[in-house]
């Protein structure tokens, strides 16, 4: 009889121990979950484009790497009028990213049949340095997903449609895309940026089958913005730029590494190039324009005729 209470006590202690262990496990799991969520929000998680089976950095980049000499683009670039022009990356996904080589500056008429799609940074570009003959479909908060499904563009008949829908019924030879800054805070970058941007490119190709598509990389933010600890930081921007390079290769579209002209030695946007750490000043936009003017793909007469 004397042993029974002792056994009961032992059993109770064991139960208490199990209960404590269970509570601790649940707490640890909750903390880990929160940590993963915050890391994802802050853009700290590594990003892997779809079907790459590797990090974006492993996408077949040229040996000197993106952002190296802007003219690294010379090799394998689609701009050259060689027989290789007709190659498509979808036929050979192992080819290097299609950088656009530096070329002689074009005049403003180059953009008369061009359309620019993008967000508030592109809004600034349009006002401060953009060619007035071009068409612009921009929205301050534009994202890779929203340009396909958010009614932001006002048509002449008064109706509002998504940016991609606004491309219908008109013909453009060049489509310049500048998206991603508003995707930095997305929870699922893979789905909301990489997959959505890939779908945007497919849709643009379907609407404008003969156009050349130019993807622009994202400019960094200033050191001051970086110091805020916000999700709009240069690590997250670098991750998205890797995704953009991957997409250019995967979709066989031209890549414009515009960020190379506005990145200082520490990888930041120079302070004097921005009003608020993110958006560009008129002088910075003029450098952006200069880059575009000197990075174009000139088609041969035969190719233009085919188009």
């Amino acid at each position: 009889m004397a042993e029974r209470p002792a056994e009961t006590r032992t059993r109770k202690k064991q139960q208490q121990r199990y209960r404590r262990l269970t509570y601790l496990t649940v707490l640890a799991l909750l903390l880990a979950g929160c940590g993963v969520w915050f890391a994802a929000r802050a853009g700290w998680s590594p990003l892997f484009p779809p079907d790459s089976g590797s990090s974006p950095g492993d996408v077949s980049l040229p040996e000197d790497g993106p952002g190296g000499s802007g003219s690294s683009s010379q090799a394998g670039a689609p701009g050259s009028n060689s027989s290789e022009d007709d190659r498509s990356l979808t036929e050979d996904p192992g080819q290097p990213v299609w950088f656009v080589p530096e070329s002689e500056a074009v005049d403003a008429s180059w953009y008369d049949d061009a359309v620019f799609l993008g967000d508030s940074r592109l809004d600034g570009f349009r006002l401060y340095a953009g060619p007035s003959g071009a068409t612009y479909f921009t929205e301050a908060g534009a994202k890779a997903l929203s340009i396909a499904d958010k009614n932001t563009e006002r048509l002449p008949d008064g109706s509002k449609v998504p940016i991609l829908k606004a491309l219908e019924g008109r013909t453009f030879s060049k489509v310049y895309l500048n998206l991603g800054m508003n995707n930095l805070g997305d929870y699922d970058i893979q789905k909301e940026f990489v997959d959505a941007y890939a779908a945007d490119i497919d849709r643009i190709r379907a609407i404008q089958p003969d156009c050349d598509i130019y993807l622009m990389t994202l400019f960094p933010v200033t050191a001051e913005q970086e110091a805020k600890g916000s999700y709009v930081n240069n690590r997250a921007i670098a991750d998205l730029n890797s995704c953009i390079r991957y997409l250019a290769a995967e979709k066989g579209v031209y890549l414009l590494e515009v960020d190379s002209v506005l990145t200082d030695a520490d990888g930041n946007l120079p302070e004097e190039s921005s009003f608020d750490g993110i958006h560009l000043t008129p002088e910075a936009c003029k450098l952006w324009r200069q880059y575009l003017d000197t990075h174009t793909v000139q088609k041969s007469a035969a190719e233009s005729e085919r188009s």
Partner: protein
Amino acid sequence: MRKFLAAALAALLTLSLGACGNGGDAASGASSADPDLDGLFTELSALCGEAAVDIDPATAAGLYGVEESEVFACRAAGGVSADEATIFQCADEARAAEVLAIAETRLADQAESYADYLPEEAVKLQNAAAVRSGSVVAVCVCADAEKAAELIRNYLG
């Protein structure tokens, strides 16, 4: 002596009132058949933030979908803020009414666009001044909407 003093004071008062009136008109460019659009544009531009710069008429015309010749002057900020001062000079009142409608639609669209992005800019857009007087249309998006409206009233009547 008293009569003389009263007459002198009355004359002084009349003169000073007249001077005040003239000065106000001069400062505000009182409305007339030929309003001082340069003066209005300069004063409206001063209400816009540091990111606003003078925009060439071709670009401004593209923003609104109007003829380049209809843009008298434009100053605007790109992306970072919605601040803007634009003056249109149209061929006639009917066209000016159309341009005003275009401007109002653009302001509403922009306000919608900025609502989730930069809410404080959306408020500026909602309160923006867009006024037509004769064949002139003035638009101003800035933090001090009341001041902008007052300036436009003073210059355009």
